[in-house]
């Protein structure tokens, strides 16, 4: 690869000089030199292509993290995320306590026939429920099958690469800072 770039730089320098004939000869020399060099082609179906680990192939959903906040769905430029949820009331855990409500996710679907892979949903998710996976081999014969429901989106989760390591001089991650804080002194917090 570096070889290739080097030779490109050379030929760019070379075009400065010369009238008609040198240019034509230079063209012939360039193509002949490329002929003698190994190709950069990867024979894809036979050999897997090399993709950078952070490639944006497909969006994976970690369902447990999703709070049905709808931020991703609202930010999506082409509205390809469908979310249905309902409220569930949790009984009070202690005697005389207050009942609590939480959102339960019924449906989370991304229509990859509409998705333009901008990644805004992944960026905007405050709870890290959406992740990029480098997998890309999910073409379908029927365009309707590109609508991935939450089960399918969840299946991509194991293919998500671990987050990149932090810089050596960076601050500690938020989670560790939070864990290292002294415990609050309130008596018997909810378990």
């Amino acid at each position, binding site marked *: 690869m570096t070889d290739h770039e080097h030779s490109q730089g050379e030929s760019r320098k070379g075009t400065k000089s010369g009238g008609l004939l040198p240019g034509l000869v230079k063209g*012939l020399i360039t193509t002949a030199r*490329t002929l003698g060099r190994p190709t950069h*082609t990867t024979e894809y179906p036979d050999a897997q292509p090399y993709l950078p680990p952070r490639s944006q192939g497909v969006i994976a959903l970690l369902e447990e993290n999703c709070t049905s906040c709808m931020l991703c769905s609202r930010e999506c430029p082409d509205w390809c995320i469908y979310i249905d949820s309902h409220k569930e009331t949790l009984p009070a855990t202690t005697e005389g306590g207050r009942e609590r409500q939480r959102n339960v996710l019924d449906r989370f679907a991304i229509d990859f026939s509409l998705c333009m892979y901008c990644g805004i949903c992944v960026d905007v998710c405050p709870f890290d429920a959406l992740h990029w996976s480098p997998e890309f081999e999910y073409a379908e014969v029927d365009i309707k099958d590109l609508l991935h429901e939450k089960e399918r989106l969840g299946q991509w989760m194991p293919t998500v690469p671990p987050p990149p390591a932090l810089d050596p001089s960076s601050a500690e991650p938020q989670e560790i800072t939070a864990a290292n804080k002294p415990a609050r002194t309130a008596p018997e917090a909810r378990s």
Partner: protein
Amino acid sequence: MNPVLEVVLRSVSVLAVFLVLPLIVGQTEHKVMAHMQGRLGPMYAGGFHGWAQLVADAAKFIQKEDITPRAADRWVFKLAPAVALVPYLVALAVIPISPTLVGADVDAGVLFVLAASAVGILGLLMGGWASANKYALLGGMRAAAQLLSYELPLVLSVASVALAAGTLSLSGIVDAWHPLWLLWQLPGAMVFFVAAVAELQRGPFDMPIADSEIVMGPFTEYTGLRFAFFLLSEYAGIVVMSLLFTVLFLGGWHGAFSDSLGPVWTLAKSAVISVLIIWMRVSWPRLREDQLQRLAWLVLVPVALVQLALTAVWVVLSSR
């Protein structure tokens, strides 16, 4: 041998050569062009490096629907591919591979080949005119203009060789050939080469087809087998022009052990010329229409005329 049998045998072998050599050139172009562009080219058909790609292409073309546009001039439209293809077959029949290996030994072979290959222009013009398509019409007009203007330098440079050899027979020209001709006829050879590539409408002279401007020129409306015939005629044209260049300027079967290896020499030399034609297409951008005409009339024709005069003077002086 029975004369009828001999004619049939000769025709069949010419036809076989006509069908095989263009495929080899086409496959070479696939692979050479791909590697010159840092690609691999066809890799699947036939197993080994896609050697059967063009056979597969032919099978595909045969299955395709043969569409004739409603507004087209039906008979002219349907006849055009044959008119483009057959002249090269006829021309190939009289080009000698070795003194004995020739489809039909014609006395005025040079004249015959030039006349036959010039008919091919008609096929393009017919296709362009009959398609009822503005791009096809533009392409056909460009083809006609280009082929007419390049026919002149082509004929003039061939005339120079014929004058030098003192014969119009192709085998006669090869017999009279001498290695010094490479130098003496060099300007004529270059004119012939450039004009031949322009006649074939190959890059950098592919203005009539110019797929980035006028879709596919005269071929725009063609589908299936008829389109394949046009493509085949292009590659058959490369074969004919390379063989002709070899016979006229490179001394055909002359070379080491030419008694036993004569045909091999002819084919090897024309293979080199074919690769050169492919190489030019890959390396150089297309000429504009006016540049194309300028090259023909202001460069090639004068050079060819000077070469003709030079040859004439030499022949007169040496025969005295």
